[in-house]
């Protein structure tokens, strides 16, 4: 163990003040800012709507599916991710400098931000709670294989796990491996298979199950 030793638990280190208190403070601050004309409430609604309904992991999934179908696009994506992603129109805050990490049969990449919650918004939307929470941020670097197991991903011993700690301004997107048995699928069908977790590197993309079983 590196760093400081504590003899008490820190389970609540990221919990902050009790929910009710925080909720009240947010509400009080919001109404004060609105009443004073510093914040336009309809602008807040537009912002919220953007990340609830428009920008999300479907964007990243389209990038991945295109890279699987189009080898030239895949190459552009690996060489200059920012411009290749911008070709599909996905640009903006927290996606200014993108890097794409390609998973292969020998390398599994996963992304964390141990210092805060850096995340590529234009391609993945807003980060899930677990990504911002202390357990993932503390353990992804010291026990990546253990964390992956909790996500249901077992990485064989002969595969290298690379953990990318996005401490600076670069934002990372994992290009997962295309699953076997998807050769006949179109780009849109492939995009449906790509999960958010697979693009963070805490999941794998699965081929669709045969329909007969049930």
């Amino acid at each position, binding site marked *: 163990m590196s760093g400081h030793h504590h003899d008490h638990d*820190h389970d609540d280190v990221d919990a902050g003040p009790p929910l009710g208190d925080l909720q009240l403070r947010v509400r009080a601050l919001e109404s004060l800012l609105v009443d004073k004309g510093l914040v336009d409430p309809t602008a807040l609604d*537009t912002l919220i709507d953007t990340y609830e309904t428009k920008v999300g992991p479907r964007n990243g999934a389209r990038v991945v599916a295109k890279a699987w179908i189009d080898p030239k696009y895949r190459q552009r994506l690996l060489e200059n991710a920012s411009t290749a992603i911008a070709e599909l129109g996905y*640009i903006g805050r927290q996606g200014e400098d993108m890097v794409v990490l390609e998973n292969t049969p020998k390398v599994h990449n996963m992304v964390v931000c141990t210092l805060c919650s850096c995340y590529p918004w234009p391609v993945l939307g807003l980060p899930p709670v677990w990504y911002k929470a202390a357990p993932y941020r503390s353990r992804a670097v010291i026990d990546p294989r253990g964390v992956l197991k909790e996500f249901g991903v077992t990485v064989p011993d002969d595969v290298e796990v690379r953990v990318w*700690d996005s401490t600076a301004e670069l934002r990372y997107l994992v290009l997962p491996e295309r699953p076997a048995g998807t050769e006949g699928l179109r780009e849109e069908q492939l995009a449906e298979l790509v999960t958010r977790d697979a693009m963070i590197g805490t999941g794998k993309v699965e081929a669709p199950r045969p329909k007969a079983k049930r």
Partner: protein
Amino acid sequence: MNGVHDMGGMHGLGPVEPEPNEPVFHHDWERKVFALNLDEHWLYGLELLLVEKGLITVEEMRSKRPAGPAPDGLRVLRPDDVPRRLRAIRAARMDEDVPAKFKAGEGVVARNIHPMGHTRLPRYARGKRGVIDRDHGVFIYPDAHAAGLGKQPQHCYSVRFSAREVWGAEASSRDAIYIDLFEPYLDPA
């Protein structure tokens, strides 16, 4: 700063709790927290900043009612501006022609420093030896910028550290951690 935000490698913080079909926001207050660009850690900081910048007064904060009009000359975000503002690039990358001290493949050691101010050098990397994986180019140096000392453009590198170098013999001999580190954090190995 050696703060609790710097979590890499800490123990005792519990299990990761993935949530299937997680909604973007769980509660309505989370929507507001996001839209106001807050975070629970930052709420207190924001309240202080609003007072410091003269946008609201301590009295208004206490009474929760505006005591006077907003200062003149403010640009308030309007709904029509939202799409454009979200697509606006807030570039930390700089065009400055700063010579790079290191090249891909060269050995480096992360400095064992403990600055009181803002830094992006995580504690778990300090004093560890790694190899430059790639040079990302020149960026605003956040340590200086956060301290109000200007942009001080610096190269930012992805540095590969073997898991064993960082965590010792029990770690996998195959695995590695790649950390984005600014040039002033690094010495030649």
